[in-house]
Each structure stands twice: as structure tokens, then as C-alpha cells.
């Protein structure tokens, strides 16, 4: 290939790559002179963080908070690949540790909430589940998170402590998937977090069990290294840790760290 041809090819490639980013970029401009704070947060924090975000925007003129919710490990992977996050809130310490290990934490992680497991059953509890031990029943269709994801790891620990062997009909990738199988009535029971049961409202019933207290999941939050506005990131984290934030979290079923 001639130099000129290679130049043309490179030019076209760059143009092609620039097209989508140009069209996305125009979105950001709509706010005029606003500053944007981008928060990457675990999926289980969706409703609470959206509410905290609204409060933050109300308190900070010209600031817009944008969220990316997802599985904690996905979020870490995205940040490692250069995603423009200012704050990262993880559903477990393991994934926050990954961020720290990669040197991407822009400040010490702080625990801001805890969450414990609860059994979700379809309304009316058709399989008559009342304890964690009931999940071992031969006719009970139980859905859990896969052991590889945080909620699944917690479930395994509880099962071990309780001395119960659960034979799930499915090991799902996320809490949402577990909840989906329960709300649709396909599964008799699913092991999810207290907050998920609360958020699901009337579509599931929650069954508490004492063993859950022994496996408490802790949520840490930290600014991300390289954020454009470390002060704003710090202020957001303070809001989460402060009374207002904690109040919102506890209303949704989260515990205090």
C-alpha cells in the first residue's frame, strides 16, 4: 500500500471512529455551562442513588449527576478500561479491592451501607417456605445467584453456616435475574437481598431468616483516580455517608455499616 493510500485509510478510520463520539458528545453540551459528575454504582443501589443524586443536584447549582448502574465487577472492568467515572460505589469489598489494586482509587474507600440476604417468594408463598432449611426441600424450586457473583458467594456462605445443602434449579448471573424468576412464578423461592425484596413491592413476599445476620455484605464507596473534579466527588460521597444519604438508604432496607 502506498503512503498516500495508507494515509487515506487511516483518515477514514478516524473519521468513522469519530462519528459516534461526536453524536454522543452533543448530548453533553445540552446542559450549557453545567458540570457533570459521573457515578458508577452497583445495580442494587439504583433507586436510592437516584434519589441521592437528585438531592445532590438540588444542593449544587449547575451540577448534573449521571449514573451508570451495573454489576460491580462489570463496573470495575469498565473503569479499568478507561470509563469516565468520578465515583465508584461497589456492592462488595472484593470489587472495591480490585479497583484499589489497580491503583484507580482517588481516595480511601469508605463503607456506607450493609445488606443482608432474604428469601423472596411469590405472593402467597405457594411452596410454603418459612426458613432457610425449607429451601433444601425436594419439591421446592430454588433460584440463587451463581457462586461467582457476590450475592451467590453470600448465599453459599449462609448455606454452609446453616448446614443446609440447597439444590437450585438455576444459578443466575444477578440478583435481578433471580428476582425475575420469582416474580414470574417460575421459581418457588429465590435468595436475594433485603433491599431487593423491599424494592420489588407486592410482587414478592420476603422471608427473613436468622442465619442472614452472619453474612453481612458491605458496600464501599470511593472517588476514582483521575476525576476532573475531586472536590465534587468528595462532596457526593459525604452526602451518601451523611444523615440525609443514610436516611434514604435505610428507608430502602440497607443497614448501617
Amino acid at each position: 500500500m502506498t503512503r498516500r493510500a495508507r494515509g487515506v485509510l487511516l483518515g477514514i478510520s478516524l473519521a468513522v471512529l469519530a462519528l459516534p463520539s461526536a453524536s454522543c458528545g452533543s448530548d453533553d453540551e445540552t446542559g450549557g455551562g453545567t458540570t457533570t459528575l459521573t457515578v458508577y454504582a452497583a445495580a442494587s443501589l439504583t433507586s436510592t442513588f437516584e434519589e441521592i443524586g437528585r438531592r445532590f443536584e438540588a444542593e449544587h447549582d449547575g451540577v448534573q449527576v449521571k449514573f451508570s448502574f451495573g454489576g460491580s465487577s462489570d463496573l470495575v472492568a469498565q473503569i479499568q478500561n478507561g470509563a469516565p467515572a468520578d465515583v465508584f460505589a461497589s456492592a462488595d469489598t472484593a470489587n472495591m479491592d480490585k479497583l484499589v489494586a489497580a491503583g484507580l482509587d482517588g481516595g480511601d474507600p469508605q463503607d456506607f451501607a450493609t445488606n443482608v440476604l432474604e428469601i423472596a417468594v411469590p405472593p402467597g408463598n405457594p411452596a410454603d417456605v418459612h426458613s432457610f432449611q425449607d429451601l433444601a426441600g425436594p419439591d421446592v424450586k430454588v433460584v440463587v445467584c451463581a457462586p461467582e457473583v457476590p450475592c451467590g458467594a453470600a448465599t453459599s456462605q449462609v448455606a454452609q453456616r446453616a448446614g443446609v445443602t440447597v439444590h437450585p434449579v438455576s444459578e443466575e448471573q444477578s440478583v435481578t435475574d433471580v428476582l425475575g424468576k420469582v416474580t414470574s412464578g417460575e421459581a418457588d423461592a429465590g435468595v436475594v437481598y433485603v433491599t431487593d425484596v423491599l424494592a420489588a413491592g407486592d410482587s414478592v413476599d420476603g422471608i427473613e431468616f436468622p442465619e442472614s445476620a452472619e453474612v453481612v455484605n458491605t458496600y464501599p464507596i470511593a472517588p476514582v483516580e483521575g476525576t476532573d473534579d475531586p472536590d465534587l466527588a468528595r462532596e457526593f460521597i459525604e452526602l451518601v455517608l451523611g444523615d440525609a444519604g443514610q436516611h434514604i438508604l435505610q428507608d430502602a432496607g440497607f443497614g448501617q455499616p
Partner: protein
Amino acid sequence: MIPRWLYAPAAVGAAFVLLPLVAIAARVEWTDLFDLVTSQASKDALWLSLRTSAIATLLCLLFGTPMAVVLARTSFPGQGVVRSLVLLPLVLPPVVGGIALLYTFGRRGLLGHELDVLGLQVAFSTTAVVLAQTFVAMPFLVVSIEGALRTAGQRYEVAAASLGARPTTVFRRVTLPLVLPGLVSGAVLAFARSLGEFGATITFAGSLQGVTRTLPLEIYQLRETDVDAAVALSLVLVVVAVLVIGLARQGRSAA
């Protein structure tokens, strides 16, 4: 006879499709490849995928071929609408397909009660995987065979009938052999689509090793914990896909 400048965007397009495949190959831990793809979980997933895809392809052939014949050879009111609906899974997000299947065959679905009475529990079973795959793969087969039928035309069938052949004889001895290449390439495509099916399966069938966790679900799962294994298995699927495309091409060029 084409303008030379067309080569540049064509090359960009080709690179866009090929580079990610190269990237997978570059990312694979070649020395551990064998161990990575032969773990028990991987073997279970691969075997499950092959089994369910084969059964799904068979189901597509059994029901899709007659469907293609009816669409290509008859006309009835609302046929256009029926054709569009049958082809819907081609453009439908698979996760929507999964939800639709859930509300059809699930415990509380349209047919759930009837299936329950018959003692059939579809959800969370390998059957559910096969149903999900059949649902998404069927249109590939129908489109392929219907196209072959339209290309072949009805003239041979009319000739056969005028020689005294009953409709069943015509179908068996004339129609099917004539569309065989289309049938083969359609079946290969349906098999490939079944093998790659993810969204409808995870929504409808769940994920359990050896029962419902097919290769794509296993890759999705491993991505969390064992990226090397996920990449290695991805490579396996890429290789299978390349083989399938090659087969389908051969089927078509034989036509």
C-alpha cells in the same frame, strides 16, 4: 469496474468486523488453551450446547419445512401478516423472546396449566433451552427454504403431478430434493443460531451446569471470575461459527 475509492471504506468495514476476532485470538492464553476449554464445566456446557442445538435444528426442520412450503406454495388471506409474524424472532431481541416463552410455557403461562396436568415442567429444564433455541432459529430455516422453493418454482411439481404423482409423492420425490441445498444451508444456519442463543435462554431457562447452562451462558458466567477461560471458550464458538458459515456456503454453492 468499481470506483477505486470504494476500497477504502470497504477495508474499514472489513477491519471493523475482523479486528475483534483477531483481538480474541490475541487475548487467548494459547499454552493453557486445552486445559481451559476442557474443564468439567466447559465440557458440560459444550456438550449441552451441541445436544440442544441439534435437537432444536431437528425441530426446526420438522415444523419449519412444512411452514415454508405452506408460505411459498399457497395463498390465503392474511398470509403476509403470518409470514411477518413467523419471521419476527429474526428481529426481536432474544430477551423479549425469552419473556414471551416464559408467559407461554412457564408455570403461570398460557399453556402452563395444561403442561402441568401432563406432568411436564418446562421451566429450568433442558427442554426450555431447546424451546428457546427453536424459537430464535426457526425463521432462519423458514426463510432459507421458502427462498429455495420460490427459486425452484412450481413447474417441476406441476410436471410431476401431470405424470400421475400424488401430492405426497411430489413433495417427497421432487420438492424436497429440489430444495435440498436450501434446506441444508437453512439447517446449518439454524444450528449456528441455536448454538449462539443467549438472551432467550437466560430469561426463560435459567442457568445450571449440565442442565441449562449452554456455552454462551458459561462464557457470560466465567467472564466474572475467569476471564482466560471465557476468552478460550469464546474462541471455541468463533471456530464453530466459522465452520458453520463455511458449511452453509458450500450448501448454497451446490444449489
